[in-house]
């Protein structure tokens, strides 16, 4: 049986050039054909369950067993490597919906920004191919346990199509979890900023903007039907192709989710109507500050919420000081499916704090395992990747983390091991290297 430290050393030895590649992004983990057992860690399954002393077996990138170690007999011979993680915590890899990590390196440097295309209706624009697997930013996110992201374009009325990728790949193609999972709509705002009064005033163009969106959906649904008919006829002359409409086709078959970004309650009500109007199978509300006010309606219409950044201020002066912190609890109590996200100011580099948002939600009423779910299984379900990730369950990808302490608390979040699809991830980033470089300069040791 090998201790965790030895495993780490082993991994480091494989990449013995670490010391000389300062400030580079470390390579993704190497595939292994070993049979691995993670033993005695506290497993947070992701679906609400826990196993205090767990035995988690991994083979060929998949979880092959999750059991209570106290209730089974372990044959050492069944495994190539057994790692004792007693006293540590195992979680499914954390999932970040609605993120732009990998699409921007430096906020103020335009050349590094790849998330905002020009134009208003851009469903055809795809984020996946711009995702930079060598991003230094992503490298500092995954070392806190966030391993998967829904990478989204921004801007315009329809920003484009997102894809779901993991953060330990050589290339966007290898990193894909689900390609072209959703289109993203920035719902028109009912209140807009007015320079004259320096306040938010009713947006007079709201109805017009909403109509534009409805028209676009109507036209693209007709186009989709027409193309479907054409595809069923042999000789028919094919009508011209419109890339925007092409990108919309799967919206009407349920192949693509529709993520609608909005916060204000009446906008949300309109969005619910919009879902019915166009028979949208998979709709996700992103932001959803006011979702707790229409929770029942959201639940009845099967709309999940990717909740606005938890660490934010109340939108209205008179509101409960801690309202943003307790929104998860309010949605949970109301039975609305939700997960957390980090969109907003400096969202790429701040994504590494996603687990601590979940921790804060616990302080404000959410149960601990529900908080874990809000960045694992719930996110996976909402994004439609729960068949492969999101929980520590047999048959799913071994995309998981082990933390020496409670990973939702910044005091104790300290990864000792992380895997993406069964590959050991290097738990180091260029920031650790810079730290080490100057520790060495000053003759200090940890």
């Amino acid at each position, binding site marked *: 049986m090998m201790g965790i430290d030895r495993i780490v050393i082993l991994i480091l030895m494989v990449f013995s050039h670490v010391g000389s590649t300062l400030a580079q992004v470390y390579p993704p983990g190497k595939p292994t054909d070993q049979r691995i057992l993670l033993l005695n860690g506290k497993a947070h399954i992701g679906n609400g369950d826990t196993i205090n002393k767990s035995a988690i077996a991994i083979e060929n990138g998949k979880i092959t067993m999750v059991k209570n170690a106290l209730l089974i007999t372990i044959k050492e011979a069944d495994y190539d490597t057994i790692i004792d993680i007693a006293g540590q915590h195992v979680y499914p890899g954390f999932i970040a919906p609605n993120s732009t990590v990998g699409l921007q*390196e*430096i*906020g*103020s*440097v335009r050349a590094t920004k790849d998330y905002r295309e020009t134009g208003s209706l851009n469903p055809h624009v795809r984020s996946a191919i711009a995702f930079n697997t060598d991003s*230094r*930013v992503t490298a*500092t996110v995954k070392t806190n346990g966030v391993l998967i992201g829904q990478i989204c374009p921004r801007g315009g009325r329809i920003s484009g199509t997102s894809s779901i990728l993991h953060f330990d790949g050589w290339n966007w193609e290898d990193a894909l979890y689900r390609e072209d999972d959703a289109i993203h709509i920035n719902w028109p705002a*009912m*209140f807009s900023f*007015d320079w004259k*009064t*320096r*306040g*938010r*005033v*009713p947006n007079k163009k709201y109805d017009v903007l909403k109509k534009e969106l409805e028209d676009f959906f109507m036209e693209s649904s007709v186009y989709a039907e027409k193309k479907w008919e054409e595809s069923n006829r042999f000789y028919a002359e094919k009508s011209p192709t419109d890339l925007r409409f092409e990108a919309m086709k799967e919206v009407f078959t349920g192949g693509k989710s529709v993520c609608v970004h909005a916060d*204000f*309650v*009446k906008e949300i009500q309109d969005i619910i109507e919009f879902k019915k109007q166009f028979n949208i199978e998979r709709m996700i509300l992103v932001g959803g500050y006011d979702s707790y*006010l229409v929770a029942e309606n959201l639940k009845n219409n099967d709309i999940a919420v990717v909740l606005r950044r938890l*660490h*934010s*201020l109340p*939108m*209205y*002066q*008179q*509101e*409960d*000081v*801690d309202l943003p912190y307790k929104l998860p609890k309010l949605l949970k109590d109301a039975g609305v499916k939700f997960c957390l996200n980090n969109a907003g100011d*400096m969202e*790429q*580099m*701040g994504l*590494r*704090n996603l687990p*601590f948002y979940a*921790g*804060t939600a*616990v*302080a*404000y009423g959410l149960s601990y395992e529900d908080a874990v779910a809000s960045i694992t299984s719930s996110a996976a379900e909402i994004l439609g990747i729960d068949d492969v990730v999101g929980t520590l369950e047999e048959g799913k990808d071994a995309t998981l983390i082990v933390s020496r302490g409670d990973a*939702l*608390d*910044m*005091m*104790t*979040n*300290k990864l000792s091991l992380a895997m993406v699809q069964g590959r050991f991830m290097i738990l180091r980033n260029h*920031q*650790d290297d*810079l*730290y080490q470089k*100057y*520790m060495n300069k*000053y003759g*200090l040791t*940890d």
Partner: protein
Amino acid sequence: MRVVLSILMCFVLFLNHAQDVNLYPTNGVKQQKDLYYAFTNATLHISGSLTTKGTLLIQNGKIVKVGAIVSLPKGTVKLDMKGKHIYPSFVDVYSNYGQPEIKQGKHDPRPQLETKKKGAFGWNEAVRPEYNTSDHFTANQKSAKELRNIGFGSVLTHRMDGIARGTAALVSLNEGKDRDLIIDPVASTHYSFTKGSSRQSYPSSLMGAIALLRQTFCDADYYSKNKNDLSLDLSLEAFQRNTSLPQIVEANDKFTILRADTIGDEFGHQFIFKGSGNEYQRAKEIKATGGAVIIPLDFPKPYDVSDAYAARLVTLAQMKHWELAPSNPKILAANNIDFAITTYGLQKKTDFFGNIRKAIARGLSEADALNALTSVPARMINAQDRVGGLGVGMLANFLVCSGELFEKNTVIYSNWVQGDEFVINPMDLVDIRGTYKLKIQENDRTLVVSGSLKKPKATIEYNVVSDSVSENGDLVLDEQTNKPIKVTRKKQVKSMLTLSDRKVSLTFKLSDEFYSLSGTVHSKSGIWEGLGTLPDGSWAKWAALKKKDHKEKESKNNTGIKPDTIGIGNITYPMMAYGWDTLPSLKQILIRDITIWTNEDSGILEKTDLLIRDGKIKMIGDILDVVDPETIVINGAGKHLTPGIIDEHSHIAISRGVNESGQASSAEVSIATVVNSDDINIYRQLSGGVTSSQLLHGSANPIGGQSAVIKLKWGWTPEQMKYSEMPKFIKFALGENVKQSNWGSYNTVRFPQTRMGVEQVYYDHFIRAREYEEEWDRYINRKSKKKNAPIVNPPRRDLELEALAQILNGERFITCHSYVQSEINMLMKVADSMGFKVNTFTHILEGYKVADKMKEHGAGGSSFSDWWAYKYEVRDAIPHNPSLLNRMGVVTAVNSDDAEMARRLNQEAAKGIKYGGMSQEDALKMVTLNPAKLLHIDDRVGSIKVGKDADVVVWSGNPLSVYSKVEQTIVDGYVLFDKNRDIALRKEIAAERARLISKMLKAKLGGEPTQKIVGKKGRIHNCNVLTDDGN
């Protein structure tokens, strides 16, 4: 010649309406107009409190005599004013009447560093004291009429443009030649804190405007003393001259009045303040300024809150202000503040009397209201001998009214201005109201005339005989005759009535047929008669005979204004959600059995008691029962107590701009001048345990502005929030912001544009500061104090260099926004060579690369916990920075620069444990003791030690845990956040909002015009925000 001139001056100034017999040629025959006019038997309102029955005698536009018994000279036109009331016409001292329109300069995205104004004027376009309103005055009869109609006879007008606006003229609202209308061409001078049409980059903020005004006071004084040695500056010359006039400052907020008063005190002037209407919120402090206030009457309309969701955008502050604004005059009066009322800001001048009555309904006395419109404004500009009263020698500006001025039904007959009558309502208006018998041919009908004297309304009543019908529609039959019973019903028809002089016309429709009657009202008998057309087109005689006089509904009090003083909400401190009805009083607090993080050698003490008395930490240890029954006892079992959190880098609670970005150095500006205690983020941060903050200038320029170091005393005034003997700080900044790297391609003008330039900015300024200091030293130690020595004028006082010299002297400390090691090192070298120390590097994200040099220099670091990648210069930032700096012996803090993060700085500190393995106690010090040290307030706060300020936080658990919450935050011994009180407050806020929303809805249903919702989301500042957000 000189005598003649001064006589002429007198003529122009004081007798301007007299016959300009000789000065100007006449086309035709000269008009003589020196007849006496006597207004006899009138009730004369000499002032708000003095009323007499008697006679007013005027001649040549001025009052000659006034009194109970006045002997009338021969040749007097006598006007009997029996039953009438005469008041002085109103005076408005805040107006731009007759001034040319102000044209905004063309927007240019490029910075404009220098003035574009031609001529021998000062350097800043917003300072325009040379502007003389009277030079540009030309009467505007449309506005004059509007103002005369609501009782005004004269206004003080000025050009409302710029920070120093020049002189104002007192002008009459008469018609005639402009030269005859100017009562006083130079009556006052005006200032403001908005730069108006100037497109010059400086100043870009409120604090910049304040600094510019202060510097101009210094410069004008210096200029006047050294004129012969200096080139001509018409602006400074005018500015200095104007300071002998009454000085009126436009202050668009209650706190700006206090800010302006501080400037007045500094330079020995008592300003008059033009307020914004929210003065009642801080009346006590405004009273203490000793200044008079000019207040507007533009009370806010109710918000249209019919959409409950959208109503959330309206803040409680907005709602409460809507309700309380009409009480402003009354509250100022109750606080003995001298105030004048202006119509400026009233969208519809016709709302004037309605709004005055609203104010009276709130308890303002009619005498105070009258004074606020007459004698008080006149006195403000030393014009009490000319306008605002009915005294001998004053201008014959007065109102003739039907009764007491502010009563609802009173009619102003005429407004006499400079002895010329302007009829507003004809005096011989006959009261035709009453009930008449209307005879047309043989038919009698009843005519009822009601409504107001000025606009009577008519109704025709007549009888209709018809069959009686039961409720279910059946005919009611006479039991005996079995025929339908006839009933007579009264019907009413509205009629169109016009009355002009004594000609009356009446049109109405009966059974779909029109009658149109015209005739005359006989003055004595009150009979109406004339001819009219009948529906068939024929003409017929008609008459109306009065049967009953009209009776006014009697009102309960004599003002006729229904008091509106019940059910009005409180003023709270601050006046917004979570404010206090009354500030808490200082009590003894005993916290028992709590885990205390002392930040002292004693470390963490478990199960310990803490006693707070008189706002200080009194005792730590096992404390027996305290006698004082008022003591607040907190059971701390299972809880933790830490020193209050101190945010070294904050931008909350600041009015109108955190950056003065107009120049590369703005050392003269100070955040301390623009602290805003009405910021919800103060309360929100208390809920996160923050008790002290350094409010910093932004990072737009290498030398920024001075800081304010405050306690988060929620409910107290800006002045009370500041630390007593506040340590002096100034913000410096390096790197991308100051070289304007990310400001777009237009901002490539201002020096510096590179890090190389930044160094030179520092050297240039520090060397100049040293020379400045030497110049002053020479002056102070000059030998010329001996007798007969020539007088030496003091050097120019330069607010910018003064602040920089304080740095050189170690009296002022630098907090420097910094990222990259090269520039950090550079500033330390500049400091070393100039002989001072850089106190703090803030952000300091590459501090870890030069930690040894920082330690050697003695600089502290105040870092972000884990920010990076937002700019090119932070690509090497690492979250281990605080830990490494700390280990290297640099005094290290973790700061927010963010209103949201500040309320969970404990979590940010805890990241030091994760990144770099800091101990828990050290981590807590990052947000408590260490920032206290950096801010030089560690003698008062930062640790739990007997004698220190009682700034403490009670946590539900380990303060560094993500799961812990603040239960109480205590500042100076006051419990300013308490989790239970917070929950109670939420309910109170909801109830108060519900009350106000239903009141607004009621107003809307009652037909009151509403205003659209404007959601004011508090602007959240960080270093980079450049605009003056107008709050």
